């Protein structure tokens, strides 16, 4: 039996209760499980960031319940415990680093937990090692590249020994290289530490590698499945303003033009399928 990490039960969230037509999340129910890499997709304003913030009690549901590791986020006494277990990384790398030196920033979380110095030092070392930023530990954050800053932010969450990472479009402001660095770091964490990853993104190429994809539209969950299952519904996706990954699009175009190719999700798969089709 898979362990449940996050559970949304009929969650509705409204930023302004006087204007219910502006409800950001409507009657949302789903569960996420330990060790899974889940991507949340959706066009602008579909409520992805709101869902992310509901995960660790930054926002509390207007109705319904959010449970993280069995704890109700609406109970104030649970807040600390939840935030320790569910770490969060945001979109803008400049606005989430607190300290003027990388290692001090990573130490910020453990300091807040009131841990003894030796413990903090050990955690900082380990967290920086996991994201491959050890050699930058004495650097100033504002001199790092976007990808490096985001890895420092991830290290900051790891230093709290977080078991689940929720990332809200962490790669949106990065160049392709930075994006790759961050994605590699995330997959490594999932592989080596079994960390549960919830990645909000609008890059389809990031979603294809996930274990599970949730698609949101207008505050509601409209698809849920493996990348292959979800991307099979290209018409429904384009109806809500999302495109299928490029390799899949190419494969389908080729098939329409008489080349026998199955659905593929990544460029490598496409190359392989193309090769198979002609040999």
């Amino acid at each position, binding site marked *: 039996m898979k362990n449940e990490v996050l559970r949304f039960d009929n969650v509705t969230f409204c930023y302004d209760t006087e204007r219910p037509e502006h409800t950001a999340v409507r009657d949302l129910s789903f569960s996420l499980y330990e060790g899974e890499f889940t991507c949340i997709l959706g066009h602008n304003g579909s409520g992805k960031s709101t869902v992310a913030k509901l995960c660790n009690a930054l926002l509390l549901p207007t109705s319904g319940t959010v449970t993280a590791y069995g704890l109700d986020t609406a109970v104030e006494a649970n807040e600390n415990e939840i935030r320790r277990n569910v*770490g969060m990384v945001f979109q803008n790398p400049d606005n989430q680093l*607190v300290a003027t030196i990388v290692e001090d920033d990573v130490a910020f979380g453990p300091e807040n937990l009131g841990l003894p110095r030796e413990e903090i*030092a050990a955690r900082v070392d380990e967290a920086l090692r996991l994201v491959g930023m050890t050699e930058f530990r004495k650097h100033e954050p504002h001199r790092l590249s976007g990808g490096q800053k985001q890895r420092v932010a991830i290290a900051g969450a790891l230093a709290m020994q977080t078991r689940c990472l929720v990332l809200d479009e962490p790669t949106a402001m990065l160049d392709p290289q930075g994006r790759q660095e961050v994605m590699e770091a995330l997959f490594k964490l999932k592989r080596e530490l079994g960390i549960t990853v919830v990645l909000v993104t609008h890059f389809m190429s990031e979603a294809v590698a996930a274990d599970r994809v949730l698609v949101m539209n207008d505050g509601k969950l409209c698809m849920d499945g493996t990348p292959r299952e979800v991307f099979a519904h290209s018409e429904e996706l384009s109806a809500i303003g999302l495109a299928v990954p490029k390799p899949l699009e190419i494969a389908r175009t080729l098939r329409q033009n008489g080349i026998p190719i199955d659905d593929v999700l990544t460029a490598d798969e496409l190359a392989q399928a193309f090769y198979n089709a002609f040999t």
Partner: protein
Amino acid sequence: MIRDISIGRYFPAKSFVHAMDARAKLLLTLAMIVVTFLCKNLYSLAALCAFTILVYLSSRLKPLLILKSLKPLLPLLILTVIMQVIFTKTGTPVLTVGKFSVYDDALIMSLFVCVRILVLIVVSSLLTYTTSPTRLTDAIERLLSPLKHLKIDVGTFAMMMTIALRFIPTLIDEIDRLTSAQKARGADFESGNLIQRVKSLFPIFIPLFVSAIQRASELADAMICRCYTGEGRTSYRVMKFGWRDAVALLAVAVFTGGVITLNVLFAPLL
């Protein structure tokens, strides 16, 4: 443009002064400032200059660096001299042009004031040049920690300083970006009278302000996510007094004693 300012910046290096404890440096800087005002005659003033230069050299920073940061002070120094020359009318005249004479007291006063200003700036610049802002904040936090008994929240104050220091470079980048963006739209910051120039800054500072508030709100979320409550924090960085601090303390003590002796041995000029 704004990047060229060296006052308050930190220049990492390996030196005696860099390796000292930030608290010791802060306290000794304050001590030096007091001693600056103890110098009463030319001998002690000379000793002050010599000691300051010695300390600066022991930091292994380039002399050019401090000269650059002293340059903006030049108008202030010149103004001081002019004021002294015009208003000090005691002592013996050394130079007379028509009805106007320059008195020797004016020159001596000018010398003292200028040297004191220069030493103050060198000493305090040296503190920030050789101490990382984080260390300095820590030092202030520890030194002010007795105030906790008066229910003053020193920890939060130090946190505010750290965040301000962290965001200065970010905001400077942002100003650069906004300036270029407005220039690209044809804004002109260099010509016109004072009012026009101030007006031309509005399109930079209003967006800057808006984005700073946005940043603050995102940063607050990020801090909450990392369990910041402002209470019960421990500290990752250790501060330890070492032999260098003892040596420096001794040096400053000996120097202070020397200045006092010189004051007693030779007649005060002021």
